[in-house]
């Protein structure tokens, strides 16, 4: 088995601030994902990375940057935090195509 570790668990930032969320996985999975989940809603795909040197935009990439530093780590940057993007950000990984996606426990973002 493996684990996905997201840091920090809780992140409080000022409006307009640049904030970075980190994710590490020890599954040795090729593919990694970042999702945003607003309270009472579903998951929306922000960025994904098929392999170590790849970066693909999801449906909600505006306002975010991502970086796949190495196979095991995938970071997400909120370029200018806004109050309407307070949510839980979920990192996930998968061994490849058409297979199960494994999730971390999330980072809860609060913007003040």
């Amino acid at each position, binding site marked *: 088995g493996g684990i996905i570790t997201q840091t920090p668990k809780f992140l409080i930032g000022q409006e307009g601030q640049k904030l970075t969320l980190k994710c590490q996985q020890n599954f040795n999975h090729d593919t990694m994902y970042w999702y945003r989940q607003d309270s009472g*809603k*579903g998951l929306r*795909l922000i960025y994904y990375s098929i392999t170590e040197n790849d970066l693909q935009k999801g449906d909600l990439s505006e306002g975010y940057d991502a970086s796949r530093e190495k196979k095991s780590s995938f970071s997400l940057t909120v370029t200018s935090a806004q109050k309407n993007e307070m949510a839980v950000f979920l990192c996930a990984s998968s061994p490849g195509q058409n297979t199960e*996606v494994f999730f*971390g426990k999330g980072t809860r973002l609060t913007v003040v």
Partner: protein
Amino acid sequence: SQWGEENLQALSIQEGEDVTMNCSYKTYTTVVHWYRQDSGRGPALIILIRSNEREKRSGRLRATLDTSSQSSSLSITAAQCEDTAVYFCATDGAGGYKVVFGSGTRLLVSP
């Protein structure tokens, strides 16, 4: 609105009842994933059904897939209180990597 942006649907049933949740998707997919999310945790896969399968079972869970109507369903037989959770379907597109989630159903099973 984007798929997944809508509010969760709410379903409330009694223990022992059967329940079915439906999912319609708009783009081609090779597989349909069904995930369960417990409070405070990330989603976890419960069934993955491939485009060449019409039905897949796992214990009290049954998923169906109709590729012609681009729809899938998840049924739980004789629901238990521990089935209380949020359930999502997800698709992975033609390439097989872009996993996007549907809007989800919050299921409450009462004793």
